[in-house]
């Protein structure tokens, strides 16, 4: 296998990384809203959030992507491949991240909240200064895990026409008849990306306040 082929795979990884990073970020923002709805205690907010999470955790990403790509035009939103891929992955990861965040908010020690109350924090301050930082700290490892899951799931976006690592590998393997070399190289690139994220996650965890020294 030539350097040129390997290089093509490396170039395609820009799509994998780009789409995953954007989806994780959008998914995180959506997850904040969803987890707030879950914890609001009002059925009016909670029910739709539960429905959303159940659907996006219950349907394979492959099917979700096809659905978004082909269904949106019928409600007047004809989005290009890249946008469909990002919407699909963001909604999917939002469902998972929302569950993580909910768990994080629920594990904020009650004593800390009470202590803040005692020293006269307003509910808003309690939320922003106590609950959010602690919940984010607690859910950080889960966020890193989710980022790795999404990086791997992005191998499915070829069904809506994005030529990322997996699709490029497929194209190259079928034109060169070197499936072992090409798919192994693709696997290696995924490993490097995923392990880098895991490593960065571990550093981040240590750097965050309250991390293991």
């Amino acid at each position, binding site marked *: 296998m030539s350097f040129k082929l390997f290089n093509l795979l490396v170039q395609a990884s820009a799509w994998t990384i780009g789409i995953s990073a954007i989806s994780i970020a959008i998914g995180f923002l959506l997850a904040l809203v969803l987890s707030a709805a879950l914890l609001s205690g009002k059925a009016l907010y909670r029910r739709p959030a539960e429905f959303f999470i*159940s*659907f996006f*955790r*219950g*349907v*394979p*990403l*492959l*099917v*979700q992507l*096809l*659905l978004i790509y*082909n*269904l949106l035009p*019928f409600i007047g939103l004809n989005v290009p491949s890249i946008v469909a891929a990002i919407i699909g992955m963001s909604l999917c990861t939002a469902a998972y991240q929302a569950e993580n965040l909910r768990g994080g908010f629920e594990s904020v020690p009650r004593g800390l909240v009470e202590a803040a109350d005692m020293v006269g924090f307003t509910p808003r301050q309690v939320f922003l200064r106590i609950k959010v930082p602690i919940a984010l700290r607690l859910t950080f490892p889960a966020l890193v895990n989710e980022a*790795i899951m999404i990086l*791997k*799931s*992005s*191998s*499915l976006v070829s069904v809506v026409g994005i030529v990322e690592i*997996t699709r490029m*590998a*497929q194209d190259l*393997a079928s034109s060169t008849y070197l*499936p*072992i070399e090409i*798919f*192994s190289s*693709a*696997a290696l690139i*995924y*490993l490097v990306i*995923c*392990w880098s994220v*895991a490593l960065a996650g571990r550093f981040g965890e240590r750097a965050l306040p309250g991390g293991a020294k």
Partner: protein
Amino acid sequence: MIFDPNVILKHLPEIAAGTGVTLALWIAGMLLGVLIGFLVATARRYGGRFIDLPLGLVVEVLRGTPFLIQIFLVYYGGPFIGLSLNPIPCGLLGLSIYASAYYSEIFRAGYAAVPHGHVEAGECLGFSRFQIIRRILLPEMALIVMPPSVNLAVILLKESAVLSIITVPELTTTVSAIGSQEYAFLEAIFLLAVIYWVIVEAAARLGRFAESRFSTYRFSTP
């Protein structure tokens, strides 16, 4: 475009067959995955460094690469090294190996979570290593590994849709083929989403029910 589910629903027997293949592959893949995963975790715990390190590397490689790439490697690469499997056995092999990597990590965490005192107590009573695993570690671990195992099972059910790409005649393959044949693409994808949603919700509920039944056997450890 007219949304007409009937063109799809008249293919009910084929859809049922596809669902059957999905469920059979899922259950078989999961059971094999649990078995291999348990063996891997046990070997890594008791086998010494020369078994732990290479197995650990394999597990990390399997967890760090997409299932789709693994399947492509086995399906299209396999024949070049003399492993020419048909789609269904290939899909089952791929799914079980993928599952075993994740299950082995669950069991590893399970082993680590059993209080050391319980193992020592067994040793004091003269239990053999096999007896310690069977009588102490496994029952205590079962409670600990149950929730993540149920989670993983649901993820595997969804991952099995990826097998459609290597022509395994499972649910996604069947329904999308009907969609193309009847030019009812949207109906097909929509139906596919609903079927998976129902199966996954049912599986998740069953899992939670099993968890709650199981946890009544929980005993408190100081």
